[in-house]
């Protein structure tokens, strides 16, 4: 399954969105146009669905409804999210899930549901608020999606959303985890527990995945020779051997790896592990352009057998120069007066014509995401 349509109302900087999504999605846009906020919709649904999660926690972790609701929201103050789930390769919805949230105007100002609906195909099977909700208002502080007792009819949706993975690996956090000790963020978005995650995979699978990564690193990283997993005093490590003029030179540990090497390891690992929705934040960071240009095809190759959806954000021309990317797969975020609007690149006539004239998606689209007066950026200094 994959998310084939997304509708938003008042989610962060998106006042109103209704767009089809493909199995592979590239989100582009200027700085602060809301690329991460877009990905956060899916993380939010995951946080509701996962064990130990739930609506209250998902909202609180984001600083309350006032931080989630669009500043442009006025006459209609509810935050609404609707997703359609379809079989991979088709667009007919198997499921639709919709949730609306508001904040109590008195008391603890808890978030509560204004609605929660589930359709199986086109048939409405859950329609809240229902009779029980009107008798007991407290019930509206929890979704049925998060409750095992209540989501039996549509647990498939819960399981799908729970498996969403977000990755924005920050090499320094992985290298110096003790320096970034603090509350664990839900879903480990920045790679704090990346090594633990590797350690939890059974040995045979782990070795198979690491071997594939090793082969890729041998090509991508000059002088890189071999790569292995090791444990010391119960703590997991990655070790690498580099070709060296001194043959007995010691192994290098993750804290000595370059930022680019670690980000590449993170990317290649996350593409192999799991089969839920994968959200990647700027996978091009720290990587050489020639490597970046291979990412779209690599994602395609690894997502297809698993029927897994991948949504990524990017600023990279190298990445979007891949002519194998369809304009239907590119979402262009455009900040306008009232928040940000989302356009599918194939819906913009001149972009389509540029491609027909032989341009790459990157050359046709990315110039539109740069600031209008970029040449004046340095004038004030």
């Amino acid at each position, binding site marked *: 399954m994959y998310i084939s349509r997304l509708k938003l109302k008042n989610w962060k900087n998106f006042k109103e969105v209704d767009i089809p999504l493909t199995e592979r999605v590239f989100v582009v846009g200027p700085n602060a146009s809301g690329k991460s906020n877009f990905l956060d919709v899916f993380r939010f649904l995951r946080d509701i669905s996962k064990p130990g999660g739930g609506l209250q926690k998902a909202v609180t972790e984001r600083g309350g409804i006032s931080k989630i609701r669009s500043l442009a929201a006025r006459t209609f103050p509810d935050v609404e999210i609707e997703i359609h789930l379809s079989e991979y390769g088709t667009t007919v919805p198997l499921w639709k899930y919709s949730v609306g949230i508001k904040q109590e105007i008195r008391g603890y100002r808890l978030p509560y549901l204004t609605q929660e609906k589930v359709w199986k195909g086109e048939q409405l099977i859950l329609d809240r608020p229902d009779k029980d909700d009107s008798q007991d208002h407290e019930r509206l502080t929890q979704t049925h999606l998060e409750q095992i007792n209540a989501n039996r009819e549509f647990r498939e949706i819960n399981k799908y959303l729970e498996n969403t993975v977000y990755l924005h690996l920050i090499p320094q956090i992985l290298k110096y985890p003790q320096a970034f000790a603090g509350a664990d963020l839900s879903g480990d978005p920045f790679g704090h527990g990346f090594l633990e995650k590797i350690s939890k995979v059974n040995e045979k699978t782990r070795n198979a995945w690491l071997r594939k990564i090793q082969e890729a690193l041998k090509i991508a990283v000059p002088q890189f020779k071999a790569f292995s997993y090791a444990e010391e005093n119960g703590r997991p490590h990655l070790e690498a051997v580099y070709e060296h003029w001194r043959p007995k030179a010691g192994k290098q540990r993750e804290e000595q790896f370059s930022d680019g090497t670690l980000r590449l390891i993170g990317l290649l690992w996350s593409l192999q592990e799991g089969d839920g929705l994968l959200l990647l934040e700027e996978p091009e960071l720290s990587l050489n352009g020639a490597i970046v240009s291979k990412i779209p095809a690599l994602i395609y190759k690894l997502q297809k057998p698993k029927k897994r959806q991948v949504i990524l954000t990017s600023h990279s021309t190298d990445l979007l120069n891949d002519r194998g990317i369809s304009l239907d797969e590119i979402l262009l975020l455009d900040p306008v007066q009232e928040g940000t609007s989302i356009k599918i690149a194939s819906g913009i*006539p001149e972009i389509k*014509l*540029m491609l027909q004239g032989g341009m790459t998606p990157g050359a046709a689209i990315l110039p539109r995401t740069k600031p209008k007066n970029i*040449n004046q950026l340095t004038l004030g200094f």
Partner: protein
Amino acid sequence: MSIYINLVSEDAISEFTMMKLLDSFASKYYIHNTYPANGYGYIKSNINGFNQASIATPFFVLTDLDNYPCPPELILDWITAPLHPNFIFRIAVKEVEAWLLADIEGFSEFTGVSQANFPANPELENDPKQTLINLARRSRRRDVREDIVPINNNATIGPNYNERLMQFVSDFWNLERAIGRSTSLQRAFNKLDNFNFTQPA
């Protein structure tokens, strides 16, 4: 009603000069998207794309003649499909810097270099960028000199070349004077003056 126009240029200073040129038509043009390249290669390889896209929205492309003997030869080499009426393709002879040098009075005032040192016909300069840099080298204004002149032989332009020249274009460059000494600028001006947007069928 304004014509929404897209700009394709070789570098920041070309783009800025195009904007200034469009400004001279008051509200006739409104700049939509800009596609700044790094050199001519990008324009050459994407020219069919921009030409095609002109069906939907007009494009104004400016490139330098550089080493081609004359504009028709460049066109013959670059362009394979017929140009759409909404596609404004202009060539600066030999570089956009010649358009800037064509306002001798303005550039002399900007640099403090005597007008006597300027070429009377900048379009005949073999390497106008170098001519401009050599003039800036004589400038009594230290900031102008240091920004425009390369720090040593291993760089081709100064460390703040584009921004300093943009300041010239915005505060000193006089289009009328420049047109008087540059045929390619005159032609670009006339083309923009006579241009009307052809709506897609």
